[in-house]
């Protein structure tokens, strides 16, 4: 598709290589399965509304440090499961970021928060991937409003909370990188009505007050994304709410991935 939303996934998230059944010919499904299925459904609906639709998701697979045998196994399994994966990149572990950068990836998904942070640091848009197998029949894309809703000078004041300059710089550039992805998702979302959409977008503000959430809503709106659901936690525990929202992906600009940030005053 011309107007592609290229999403990069890694083979160890697509297939469960930790499982005891990983030696068999057919690899067991991994965390990314429900996401790929949901993405496929969105693409189908887009085309059914308009057969000459140019906007759509494109999923690429990145595998690092694979033997020749594994490479074949991966390609065979993708075919076996009928997954629409258009490109495969086999590379070394330290080449992953370069691979992402050189392929116009609009979003890199991972379950590893360190990896996500490293990608964001290198100006690659990245987000957390969740397993929602058998739960939803729509793709749920969630954004955290804490970075999006903070104006420039407030982002700088995060230094008082113990974040380093490098970390703050990462948050700022993560915000800028997200603009394109948000715009494309917004355009995709508009192809469907408010009800019965295969795609649902959500904003969750974890730390910020209502005005930060309001600011995030307006910023996303300005980027072309009118979210469907919004939650403002103002510090209330976020996990019970996330358990109900059931996102496939959650973008938080790296902020909440940094669980071990020092100097929080209790």
């Amino acid at each position, binding site marked *: 598709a011309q107007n592609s939303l290229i999403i990069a996934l890694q083979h160890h998230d697509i297939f469960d290589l930790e499982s005891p059944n990983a030696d068999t010919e057919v690899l067991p499904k991994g965390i990314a399965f429900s996401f790929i299925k949901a993405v496929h459904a969105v693409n189908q609906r887009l085309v059914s509304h308009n057969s000459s639709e140019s906007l759509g998701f494109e999923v690429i697979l990145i595998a690092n440090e694979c033997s020749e045998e594994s490479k074949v196994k991966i390609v065979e399994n993708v075919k076996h499961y009928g997954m629409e994966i258009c490109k495969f990149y086999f590379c070394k572990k330290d080449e992953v970021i370069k691979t992402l950068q050189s392929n116009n990836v609009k979003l890199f998904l991972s379950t590893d928060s360190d990896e996500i942070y490293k990608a964001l640091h290198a100006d690659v848009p990245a987000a957390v991937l969740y397993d929602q197998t058998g739960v939803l029949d729509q793709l749920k894309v969630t954004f955290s409003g804490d970075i999006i809703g903070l104006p420039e000078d407030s982002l700088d004041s995060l230094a008082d909370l113990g974040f380093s300059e490098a970390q703050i710089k990462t948050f700022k550039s993560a915000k800028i990188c997200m603009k394109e992805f948000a715009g494309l998702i917004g355009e995709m979302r508009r192809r469907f009505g408010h009800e019965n959409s295969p795609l649902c977008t959500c904003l969750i503000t974890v730390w*910020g007050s209502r005005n930060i959430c309001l600011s995030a809503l307006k910023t996303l709106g300005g980027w072309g994304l009118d979210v469907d659901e*919004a939650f403002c936690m103002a510090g*209330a525990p*976020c*996990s019970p709410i996330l358990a109900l929202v059931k996102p496939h992906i959650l973008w938080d600009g790296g902020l909440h991935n940094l669980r071990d*940030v020092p100097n929080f005053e209790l």
Partner: protein
Amino acid sequence: MSEIKQEELNSTNQNVEKADETDWAAAKAHYENLKSKKPRPPKPKNAVTIAVSSRTLFDMVKDRKVFEEEGLEKYVEYQQEHENEPLKPGSAFPFVKALMTVNERLRTLYPDSEELFDIVLMTNNHAQVGVRLMNSINHYDLTIERFCMTGGQSPIGYLKAYMTNLYLSKDTKKVQEAIEEGIAAAIMYKPDMMMELSETQLRVAFDGDAVLFSDESEIIVKQHGLDTFFEHEKQHENKPLAQGPLKCFLEALGKLQKKIYAKNERLDCPIRTFLVTARSAASSGARVLKTLRSWGLEIDEALFLAGAPKGPLLQKIRPHIFFDDQMFHIEGAKEMGTIAAHVPYGIGQKYNKGKLIEQPEKLQK
């Protein structure tokens, strides 16, 4: 966890809890950092959480009409066009303002405590409508920092996730679901005329049977008549009634009142509770008072009407909210200017003015 919360949320994952604590600490630090004059919202597990829907907080009658006549898409568009126009106050607005007043007092007396009211906006409106809702909240400077805009999903799961103590809505089905899940809930009605309400004291009135207490006695009245009821109540005077859906909310109010009394401010308490029951003091009142005592609960004023209409008395009390299970009493209260909240619980739902409703209930949207 504070005694105010009845249930404990099951968090089996230690990492998840640690993450939640970090989020909490960060939010706290962030608030203090921004040097905001606004008070920081309390931790939900320590607070009395009140969830209000958008239609109870604000008057959205006109907007509802757009939704019903022109559909969802046009409705969202309409709200976006009017997003900078603040909505007018709704039936729960005075109640919310009164909660804020109590919080101010509690913060003065206990500056470090989190045993406060926490008000959450719980709506299944789409987030785009939320912009207008938040602008309106800003306009009135309400302390509502938390909200759920579920974009069409049922709010019931979110009520539990927020550890809600009381849920107010205009949607019968949602309120019934909440009550079935053990959350105190009621359907708000706007009174036919507005009365001046106290700005320094939160005043909450409760009916007894099927609101604070179970509907066991009401069943006897409906099925066997008043005489049997009086006999039964006298016989069982010393047996506490089972609890009703609003008992826990009264309990939460009581705990906050005790904190005020502990600071020697009983005479100037910013919370006052009322029992307004059709029971008569002589024949069936004792059981009610003894039940409350057995629960360790106090109610400030107990008014036994012996069947007289509640409207005139409520007009004198001027509560910010009055809970009753029977629509007959709700109508009566409404007509005389009281903000009434219908608790759709128990046998009273099958009757109208003492007569059994034969037809199935009309489905409400």
